[in-house]
């Protein structure tokens, strides 16, 4: 049972959050409107594949990921969690609405 520090609410139990997976950097919006093939490849890479070099989504190690604090402030929290031992590094980032 993880203890996740919400920048707004403080350290809270995992059960207050829901998981949003890796923090992904989506392909540029409003670009490539006519280049469907390229856009498809970019989105496929970002959404499906797990070892995007700049942004791995399923590493055995540190993962930059987002959690939704539905049982608290209803904000998304970004943490870096090591998937091997669940240790959470200190850099916690809140996303303000």
């Amino acid at each position, binding site marked *: 049972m993880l203890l996740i520090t919400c920048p707004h609410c403080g350290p809270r139990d995992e059960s207050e959050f829901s998981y949003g997976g890796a923090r992904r950097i989506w392909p540029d919006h409003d670009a490539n*409107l006519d280049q469907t093939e390229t*856009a498809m490849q970019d*989105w496929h890479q970002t959404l499906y594949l797990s070892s995007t070099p700049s942004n791995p989504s399923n590493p055995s190690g540190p993962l930059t990921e987002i959690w939704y604090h539905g049982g608290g402030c209803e904000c*998304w929290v970004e943490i870096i969690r090591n998937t091997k031992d669940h240790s959470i590094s200190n850099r916690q980032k809140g996303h303000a609405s």
Partner: protein
Amino acid sequence: MPTAHIFAQMGEKLTFHAETQSFLPSLPEQSQHYIDPVGGARGVLYMDACLADGKASAHDAMADFNMHKHLDLPRPAVSPAPIQGFERGKGKAFIDFQNDVTTADIALAQREGYGHIELTKRYTTLGMGTDQGKTSWTNGLLEMLSISDMKAAEIGHTTYRPPYSPVSIGALVGTETGQQMTPIRRTPFHKGFADLGCVFQTSGDWLYSRYFPQPDETMTAAIKREALAVRNSLGCVDMSTLGKIDIYGADAMLFLSRLYCNNFATLKIGQLRYVLMLREDGYVLDDGTISRLGENHFHLTITTANAGKVWQYLKKAAMVDWPELDVTLTSVSDQWASLAITGPYARDLLSALKPDFDVLPAGLPFASVRIGHLYGYPVRVFGVSFSGELSYEINTPSGYADALLSMVMEHGKAWNITPYGLETLDVLRIEKGHLSIGTEIDGRRTADDLGLGKMLSRKKDFVGRALSQRPAMIAEGRQQLIGLISEQNEPIPHAAHLSDTELDQNGCAESLGFLTAAIYSPVMDHYIALGFLKNGRQRIGDTVWAHSPIAGQSIRLKVTSSCFYDPEGVRYRA
């Protein structure tokens, strides 16, 4: 044997200590460790050493907390222990008393190749009883050592898992039993509808109004009566479970246009639009409405089933994906009670409620929204229709729900207003071919599968656009939503599959799709259904088999458009 179970449960391996022939926890070196074994649990056996170890550990903790009183005390060494034990004579000797595992069993497991300690455990059941091997696994390990050429460190130990000792399931569940397992959500109209004789139904967290039987009336009869009342006169239904989001900001329009696939750049203040949202992978996620309340102010509805999910999704888009956009989201689902008045006399009823805004067709046309008052109560009135009849969803702050409902029931008497529930709502929407989450929008459908391909804007980018163009998603031969009617006007078996062939002698047939809904339509006096059929839209006019082996029925159905009732949309625009 040190009782280091709770230490080792976190996946820390214990280290074999030859001097004491036991596995010991090692002292934590990094602050990532929360746990510090002391005394017997780490092989420190003597009283004075145990006292010193406990004390030193407490001081270490105080040092970690930067408490000023701490001392730096040495930790006592692991106590030595004699390693010579007893020899034993021949014969079967027990190692695990509960599961009757003997020395012979360990030897057999070694001989048969189950030499890995995990395999030995599984093959012999060593340590798998309710004591979880507390007195047996070290002896099992030593027995393995004595007959194999492996070293203790090589053999290792099996994984330590909670619980240390069996624990009461009653306590693990606590008070979350029976009705208390999860919270129950009731809408602001719950009491009002209960007083009107509503039968409620559990679905997810919600208690929905299901139908409103009159004395001695069956559900089927009640649904028929309710549906005809809506089609011919006037009904009202609770829509409060819809998700409702208030969106404000200079970039609100841009934000929504990225999320929803329709083009609604031309949406004017006071107008609303039926909208569709895709997932990133291009499949349909949700439908709903966007109302423009001001230049930078929008009101969004989300389906009940997706209310939580889409809310999270919107928040993520605003906070994580596009933090640069100026947009503020507020969930107002619980703040607004929502009651739809539906039927040919809906406008007459609205007029009777003393509106302080124009409710004539020109002043309040279909797909528009007005902010005002009814009898002085603040409301937002949305001209939308799920039923296909002239209809208004009246939102009022939840605290006024009772007042709104009694006004509507009182003034609706003139048109014999009939409250209805989910069952009739479903009948009405099926007659119109409107979609329902979980049945038609089931997470596997493209907009085109649902007959909504035209809603995808070609002029802008939106979430899901790129991947919705993947080859298999635009290929021929996909299942498409269609309507079906019973040729002989006989009841259509629920959940039947569609096929071009009869059942073979084994009762099998190739499925080309299945029914998502099958009802008796009171207004058409006909049995109709919605379903997915391979290449369905090209097959309108064909006749197909509907097989339900579970019901023991196979009947012929004619493929039609998915909209059975008022396809031109004359009635809801009245």
